[in-house]
């Protein structure tokens, strides 16, 4: 692989944002994802190649290590931050249509629930897998979910619930989404959610960790 892309991939994996970032300490005073992405583009490497060969594999390694409890939430957030600094250079190509995303993923935490960490981690990982993210935030009503799906035909949706008491709202939102959009792919997750519950409420996929959601989306796109 191109050395520049390899370096960039390592920066994203370990959360090296840019030259001035002191984290991780072992990479202090080195160039980070921000500079290396610029250099890759200037060297004529296509944004698509940067994504496919550097960013997506990096985030995939991050997701796998997280699933194996080798890294933890803070390291994942560092990686996501490095990826975002790389995306600053890539996004214009998305916007101009020169580079295509794999799809659109709508996500939100259900009504009555203000927890956002799990939702944010899933967003970051799916964005890192090449998808456009529509983040509806927390305490999202069924109407808002429905409106977002209406505005983004062909999108996939993910619902998060962190409380046993808000799982009921997840069930309601999924039921109404299913009724309005029979072919919509619906993912669910959050601490109290199980595969059994996912099946019972008529959602399509449950994953205990962000990487599981990424793997599922890979099969769809």
């Amino acid at each position, binding site marked *: 692989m191109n050395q520049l892309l390899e370096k960039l991939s390592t920066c994203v994996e370990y959360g090296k944002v840019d030259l001035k970032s002191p984290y991780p300490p072992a990479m202090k005073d080195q160039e980070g994802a921000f500079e290396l992405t610029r250099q890759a583009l200037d060297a004529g490497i296509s944004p698509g190649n940067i994504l496919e060969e550097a960013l997506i594999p990096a985030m995939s390694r991050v997701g796998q290590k997280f699933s194996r*409890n080798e890294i*933890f*939430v*803070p390291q994942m*957030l560092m990686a996501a931050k490095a990826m975002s600094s790389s995306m600053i250079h890539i996004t214009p190509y998305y916007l101009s249509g020169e580079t295509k995303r794999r799809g659109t993923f709508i996500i939100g935490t259900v009504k*009555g629930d*203000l927890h956002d*960490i799990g939702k*944010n981690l899933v967003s970051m990982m799916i964005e890192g897998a090449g998808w456009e993210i529509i983040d509806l935030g*927390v*305490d999202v009503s069924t109407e808002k979910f429905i409106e977002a799906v209406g505005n983004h035909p062909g999108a996939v949706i993910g619902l998060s619930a962190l*409380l*046993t*008491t*808000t*799982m*009921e709202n*997840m*069930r309601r939102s999924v039921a109404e989404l299913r009724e309005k959009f029979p072919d919509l792919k619906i993912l669910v997750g959050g*601490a*109290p959610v199980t595969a059994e*519950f996912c099946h019972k*409420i008529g959602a399509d996929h449950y994953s205990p960790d962000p990487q599981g959601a990424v793997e599922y989306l890979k099969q769809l796109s």
Partner: protein
Amino acid sequence: MRTTLKGKTKEVIIDTEGPVIIIGECINPTRRKKLVATLEAHDFSYMLELAESQISALADVLDVNVGYPGVDDEVLLPQAVKALQERFDIPLCLDSPNPRAIEAALKVAEGKCLINSVNAEEASLQRLLPVAREYGAAIIGLVLDDDGITHDPEKRLRIAEKIIDRAVRAGIKEEDVIIDPLAMAVSADPDACRVTLETIRLVHDRLGHNITQGASNISFGLPDRENINNAYMAMSIMYGLTCPIANPEKITGLVRAADLVLARDDYAIRYIEHYQSNLKH
């Protein structure tokens, strides 16, 4: 300031000067499949087991949360309260986002319960304060409002003041409002626990109210969670936390040690009581 809760006959006094009172968190369906399965079958035996083990681990109050999809907590919460009070004389903390379930439980509960929780959202204040007043319950005031969650301790303090003010105007005694400063995970925001600790300090110093928090989740997403929880619990107690909602089997030793080092446990009586009760198990 002293908040009195009551079981059938037993009174528990939560005092801002300590010692720390433990509200046992274990009657909660999160990660307890067996509790859900037994409650769905209207079988309270496992719930009573959870109560018993928490009481023998020196819980002073029991939190009761039976909310789970498919169970009607307007029916189940009062039934759970009755079943608990038939067996145990301990104050209860009624935990549900459904005001109708809280009200139904208060109707059948003996003594003086704690409501978990009221927040500064207009809808919450209007719905729950009259209920608390009617049944003479104390409330936990969670510091969030219609604008959501703020990360500014001064703003959290003002939200606490607002809840107290509204509660007093609704006829609730000032001391019956216990503030929850809203603990959040430190893995996602390095400042999260500092903000809450600062809120605890401000509420304690300026308002002088009792303070609770459910803090087991501050360590979400990190390894060796107990280390983080213990460090945070000790610091929270130092700043003015007086009645954490926690698992007594894990926290009682630490809490009693914290009271001891803060000179609230003459002759280490309570610390040693916990040590000796552990020997018996």
